[in-house]
């Protein structure tokens, strides 16, 4: 592992939404390895031998957030890290084919879910105790390159990830103004080998699908979940203590400009 020693996060408590698979599961493992108590909050069950404590959680449901925070505060007495990672693409609807119903579903999970997470996490992060003398915390919101370029996702997904991008800045500035000691940043992955691409894997096979997507990334491959987990771990830890309200792109060069192959999605 790169970037943290075994005890760097010891005593700290983290919640990772969508923690049962993909970027979430990799992040849970890395945070746990760095010594944090980690709650993998997910609507789908975690693998049997997965690290962290599982909590059955629907990010789109406000009551579920209340229950999750109550449980974490009761068991651990504090919250230091929230990774808002859960998300859906909701199919490949264009501006013309997306229905209001589809829009609302994607909005509920990808945008409202992050809003609710930040709102309830701040409450938890403000709680102090004998071993946490001052409020402190780090919120990492997983947005997407779809917030940065229009070709990288379905319409409603682009909109929701664009909302997360700006919401993160507003949260960062608000917490700074209030001197809560809570930082908030957004992460913008390109293609990552996670279940979000299951429909593509099913259509063309996983190896072929990965190669196809990889071709669009200047670096020649899509990311492994750990690639994103490392970035998130860095943002979650005190190593990034002066970093807030900023955008962190990990996309293999996807949004950086033109290559001889052209831009993603245009050829």
């Amino acid at each position, binding site marked *: 592992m790169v970037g943290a020693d075994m005890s760097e996060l010891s005593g700290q408590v983290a919640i990772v939404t969508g923690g049962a698979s993909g970027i979430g599961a990799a992040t849970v493992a890395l945070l746990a390895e760095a010594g944090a108590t980690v709650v993998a909050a997910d609507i789908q069950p975690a693998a049997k031998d997965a690290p962290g404590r599982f909590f059955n959680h629907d990010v789109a449901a406000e009551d579920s957030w209340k229950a999750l925070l109550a449980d974490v505060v009761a068991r651990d007495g504090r919250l230091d890290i929230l990774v808002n990672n859960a998300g859906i693409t909701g199919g490949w609807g264009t501006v013309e084919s997306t229905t209001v119903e589809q829009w609302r579903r994607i909005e509920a999970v990808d945008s409202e879910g992050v*809003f609710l997470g930040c709102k309830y996490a701040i409450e938890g992060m403000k709680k102090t105790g004998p071993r946490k003398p001052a409020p402190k915390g780090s919120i990492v919101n997983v947005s997407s390159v779809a917030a940065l370029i*229009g070709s990288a996702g379905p319409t409603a997904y682009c909109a929701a990830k664009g909302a997360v991008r*700006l919401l993160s800045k507003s949260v960062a500035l608000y917490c700074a103004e209030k001197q809560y000691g809570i930082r908030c940043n957004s992460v913008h992955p390109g293609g990552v080998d996670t279940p979000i691409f299951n429909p593509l894997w099913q259509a063309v096979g996983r190896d072929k699908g990965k190669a196809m997507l990889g071709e669009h990334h200047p670096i020649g491959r899509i990311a492994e979940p750990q690639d994103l987990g490392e970035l998130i771990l860095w943002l979650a830890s005190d190593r990034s203590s002066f970093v807030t309200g900023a955008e962190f792109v990990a996309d293999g060069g996807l949004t950086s400009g033109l290559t001889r192959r052209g831009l993603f999605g245009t050829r």
Partner: protein
Amino acid sequence: MARVENKVVLISGGASGIGAATARRVIAEGGKAVLADRDAAKGEALAKELGKAVAFVPLDVTDEPAWQKAVTTTVETFGGLHGLLNAAGVGVRNSIEDCSLEEYRRVNDINSMGTFLGCKQAIPAMAKTIKEQGGGGSIVNISSVLGLRGASYAMAYCASKGAVRSLTKNVALHCAQMKYGIRCNSVHPGYIDTPMIAPRLSGTIDNMSGRQWLETLHPLGRLGQAEEVANMILFLLSDESGFSTGSEFVCDGGLTA
């Protein structure tokens, strides 16, 4: 030469502010404007004042059938649709701690989903008009400087305007790929002296009036005028901007500089 000669432009939020100012510019440059607004009294009065080149349709931007009707009425009245301005929006102050889920959804429904529905319903009619009549089509979505920068006091608004910024690029690329001849860009105004910011002008912040405080945010030292944003929008609606699509056009007195 008239810059939007015979172009028909549908304007959400057309009864006041940036929408109304744009309608005036469009008809001054030879185009037709349909004011779509929730405020029927104001919208009808303005349409009457501006004359034959302007019509009014009632519109709640969160209501998809109402958008369908607005588009149909526009085509029936003026024989086609070339431009769409998504100017309707709400400006709300709230923070991550004091915003309820209901409020977050309301702001995002109007500013973000409303813009999506406008694009969705206008695109087929615009594509048809362009195919039959030639010329270029243009969608202009009003985002904000708060779609580019965060604000501690406007969480839900920032989210909704960030959504519009990203959505615009997706729409632009979809239309380009489909070869519809429709461009789509976002405009990012600073604080413009319109009814939307009226509630922000009173009161006191840091020993300044609300107006003075907002003025000092802009390096130019004043609020923007709706006409100044309308001039940018007119350029984007016209074929003068024919190679611009999926881009961000800032009109903010230097605020984000």
